[in-house]
């Protein structure tokens, strides 16, 4: 190994040819990664992160090309390298881990054979390669490698599949590992495990890592140095600590401010936003790329491109105002919304929705699979109930049961405003249907791509309010303007709108029938953090204005904590903890909640001891005996009640006023172990 950086970008420019025109995606990007160093690239979607990752492998899409600059791998320029030489490098020195393990693995080849291919490429015989596979899988902490080797990709959980992909990437003992959003699709607990694994492997092997992520928390925990990308330009770079404690580019400052972080709550804090939207691909700039959205913008910024300014030791930012960035004025969108239709709402906190013994079993291959088990929850007027839990916990199913999109099993009751509602949608009154609406996770799927914005919202107004077509169009336009969807966009189709605007249209539709309760199913998880902040602010405004209640489903605990008054933690279709948001977050926690909270990488850098959840989520078709958490419970061992945990399912009991838990371990004992 030479002393040269493992990877160096020198004034790299990459362009994509779209419809005959070259569009710039990377603008003179320069950085270098020392051998063994972990370098993070962070930025919002479309900023060129993945392009940088693929460029490092010299594996750009067919319409992409390097227009100038160079990429050096250990001092060797790989831009002009022959195909066979670059293949040799990819075989032996540079590896990549992709975002989606499900598509990175070939579904028709057994895992063992697939990993063996990498060893075979290094010239090993088939049997030698297979022997190596086992070791490789053990190295990425796969417990039963011989069994896993015989499986196909679809038979693995997401975390397991990503471990296999990592094993394949490490098989060549690479000196550079490129990781493109390696944990983005994974649950928090699994993400934490995979990140721990990567950290451990890196320590052992001394591999340099180029780590791409949109998640600042993950970057903070994984990287030695960070580069911030905006519109294809590197706007700030420095040691991780410096970037997070002393961000010096207005974009970095804005990015860090708009994240709902530790302890912020809707009642006391409004989220900052970054005004405007990122520029379209290939926009030409005379001045600073961020000038249009910057709070500190001056005439100079629009005409002259700023150079990298040294802020601290190896900490640079591309801005004329690095000294003022940290204290730049907060960007809070203050426009208030006006969609109020129900001024005569009961006072906040009065009970609105009562979910009683809600259960749902789906039939699968002749067996009943209990996806939702005896869930009882309450939502008050003007309150937000947060639903959290890993994927498969039943969050979305509960939402669909409440709305009547699925029929619930007998014995279940959904009581809205004192009225026991029918189980399925078509048996409910139109008024009750309009009273409970939903904002879906993915606006691309939730909005009909063949319909205009006006039609999408207007039709909902027409049906749910019983207005004439003309009146409902007018009302739809009022509603949309209230949500700050401009009149010029009303005739647009969803495909013409940005993600944030689409979600505003979806929210407008949900509010068409003056709802009392709106279910928000991961409404911001497909959005960039700056857009997320504006959507969360909008939801909070709507709630304050109309006293609308929310059921807010999210895997992002920071977001849930910000917006929720009450939290229900779900595991395997059961409520394991329920109570006021403060109590649930401050503890003592249910052991599952504790593990969930400890797995979130914080952006404030506080190191929390991680409480690992071992093993995988059991299948709801065959739940464990006793407490369903017991095979994974981090607190059962040594609790003294193990015999109960394994044999008797605990009931949801009020352990202190307004705080419910489903656990055999006494509250005081939990408090003691959790504060140690």
């Amino acid at each position, binding site marked *: 190994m030479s002393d040269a950086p493992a990877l160096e970008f020198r004034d790299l420019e990459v362009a994509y040819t779209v419809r005959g025109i070259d569009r710039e995606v990377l603008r003179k990007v320069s950085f270098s990664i020392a051998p063994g160093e972990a370098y993070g690239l962070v930025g919002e979607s479309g900023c060129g992160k993945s392009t940088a990752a693929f460029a490092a492998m010299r594996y750009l899409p067919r319409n992409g090309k390097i227009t100038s600059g160079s990429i050096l791998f250990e001092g060797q320029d790989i831009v002009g390298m022959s195909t066979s030489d670059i293949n040799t490098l990819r075989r032996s020195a540079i590896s990549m881990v992709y975002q989606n393990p499900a598509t990175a693995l070939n579904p028709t080849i057994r895992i063992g054979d697939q990993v063996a291919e990498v060893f075979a490429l290094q010239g090993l015989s088939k049997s030698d390669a297979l022997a190596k596979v086992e070791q490789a899988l053990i190295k990425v902490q796969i417990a039963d490698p011989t069994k896993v080797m015989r499986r196909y990709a679809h038979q693995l959980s997401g975390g397991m599949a990503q471990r296999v992909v990592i094993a394949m990437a490490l098989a060549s003992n690479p000196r550079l590992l490129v990781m493109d959003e390696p944990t983005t699709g994974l649950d928090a607990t699994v993400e934490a495990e995979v990140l721990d694994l990567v950290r451990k492997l890196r320590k052992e092997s001394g591999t340099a890592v180029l780590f791409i992520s949109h998640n600042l928390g993950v970057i903070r925990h994984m990287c030695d140095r960070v580069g911030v990308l905006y519109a294809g330009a590197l706007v700030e770079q420095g040691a991780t600590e410096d970037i997070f404690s002393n961000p010096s580019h207005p974009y970095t400052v804005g990015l860090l401010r708009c994240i709902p972080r530790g302890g912020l709550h809707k009642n006391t804090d409004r989220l900052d936003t970054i*005004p405007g939207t990122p520029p379209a691909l290939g926009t030409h700039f005379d001045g600073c790329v961020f000038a249009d959205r910057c709070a500190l913008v001056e005439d100079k910024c629009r005409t002259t491109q700023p150079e990298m300014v040294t802020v601290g030791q190896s900490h640079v930012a591309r801005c004329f105002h690095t000294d003022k960035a940290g204290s730049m004025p907060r960007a809070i969108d203050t426009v208030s919304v006006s969609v109020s239709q129900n001024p005569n709402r009961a006072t906040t906190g009065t009970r609105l929705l009562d979910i009683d013994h809600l259960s749902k079993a789906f039939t699968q291959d002749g067996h009943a699979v209990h996806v939702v088990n005896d869930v009882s929850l309450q939502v008050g007027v003007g309150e937000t109930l947060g639903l959290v839990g890993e994927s498969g916990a039943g969050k979305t199913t509960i939402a669909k049961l409440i709305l009547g999109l699925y029929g619930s099993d007998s014995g279940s009751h959904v009581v809205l405003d004192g009225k026991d509602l029918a189980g399925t949608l078509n048996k409910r009154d139109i008024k009750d249907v309009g009273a409970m609406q939903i904002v879906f996770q993915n606006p691309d*799927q939730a909005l009909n791509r063949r319909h205009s914005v006006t039609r999408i919202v207007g039709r*909902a107004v027409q049906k749910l309010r019983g207005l004439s077509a003309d009146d409902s169009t007018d009302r739809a336009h009022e509603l949309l303007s209230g949500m700050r969807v*401009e009149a010029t966009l009303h005739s647009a189709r969803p495909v*013409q709108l940005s993600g944030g*605007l689409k979600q505003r249209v979806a929210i407008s539709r949900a509010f068409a029938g003056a709802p009392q309760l709106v279910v928000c199913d991961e409404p911001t998880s497909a959005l960039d953090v700056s857009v997320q902040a504006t959507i969360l602010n909008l939801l909070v405004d709507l709630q304050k204005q109309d006293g609308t209640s929310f059921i807010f489903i999210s895997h992002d605990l920071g977001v849930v904590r910000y917006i929720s008054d009450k939290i229900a933690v779900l595991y395997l279709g059961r409520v394991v903890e329920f109570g006021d948001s403060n109590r649930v977050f401050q503890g003592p926690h249910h052991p599952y909640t504790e593990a969930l909270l400890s797995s979130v990488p914080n952006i404030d850098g506080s190191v929390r001891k991680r409480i690992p959840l071992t093993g995988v989520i059991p299948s709801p078709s065959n739940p464990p005996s006793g407490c369903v958490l017991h095979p994974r419970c981090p607190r059962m061992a040594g609790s003294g009640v193990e015999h109960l945990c394994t044999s008797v399912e605990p009931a949801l009991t009020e352990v202190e006023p307004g705080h419910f838990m489903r656990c055999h371990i006494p509250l005081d004992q939990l408090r003691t172990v959790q504060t140690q």
Partner: protein
Amino acid sequence: MNDTTATTIANKSNLERKTIRRERVRLVLRDKTFLIGALILGIWLFITVFGNFLAPHAAGDQDFQFVSKSPSLKFPFGTDSNGRDVFSRVILGTRLIVVMAFSATVLGTVLGTSLGLATGYFKGKFDMIVMRLIEAVSAIPVLIIALLAIAALDGRSPTLTVIVIGFVFTPNIGRTVRAAVLGESELEYVAAARLRTERTRHILFREILPNVLPPIIVEFTVRLGYAIFAIATLSFLGAGVEYGSPNWGSQIAENWGNIYSNVWWPTAFPALAIASLAVSINLISDSLLEIFEL
């Protein structure tokens, strides 16, 4: 969000959308496959409409001085054994086959689309039963079903043939549409429509149908090509059209025996007509398939 920014984005993307559409149209218009197909089909459609004015002779005109004459200036395609002008008969036969093929395909597409929408949306037992029936029907060759139906209903009318072919096409189109609808009905805009108490009919035809149009259009062109062949074959076999009317299939049937006495033209020209019409439609559908990436 800043108002002006939002507007500029919208304008920009509006432009973008128009460019994409224009781009597609340009791709189609540049595609040689499509152009050749469209040119040939265009000629046939012109003949369909104006055939009566173009044909130098009436279909039944016989001139016994010119029996089985080879192609010449007077008779570009020659004459058949009854002394009729093959050129005129090919021209006059166009309308029948084109109109029948279009009607049959439209009928099959409408029925198939309805079936596909219903099975793809309702799923469950209904879907299972219908799909098994469709599979059973699909297992029998199309022509045999058509022949059996026409024989059983004792019909030689073009209308009956159109109806039979339309029905025979229904399962195939139904299956294509069903596959597209299965994916669409899982999307959340359908749930959103249910959550504003839309009727099923509205959901199927106003929400889902517009989103599954591209595969339907392609399936339509593919089926149209098959319909030409099916109608020609049926009339060759003597089923489906009135005897003696100028149509390509029966022309071939009447004259193919004379090939052995070297009178090839009354068979060859109608056959070429069938082939070029079917090929032109297939060229168009191939090109659409490629450009719309279906």
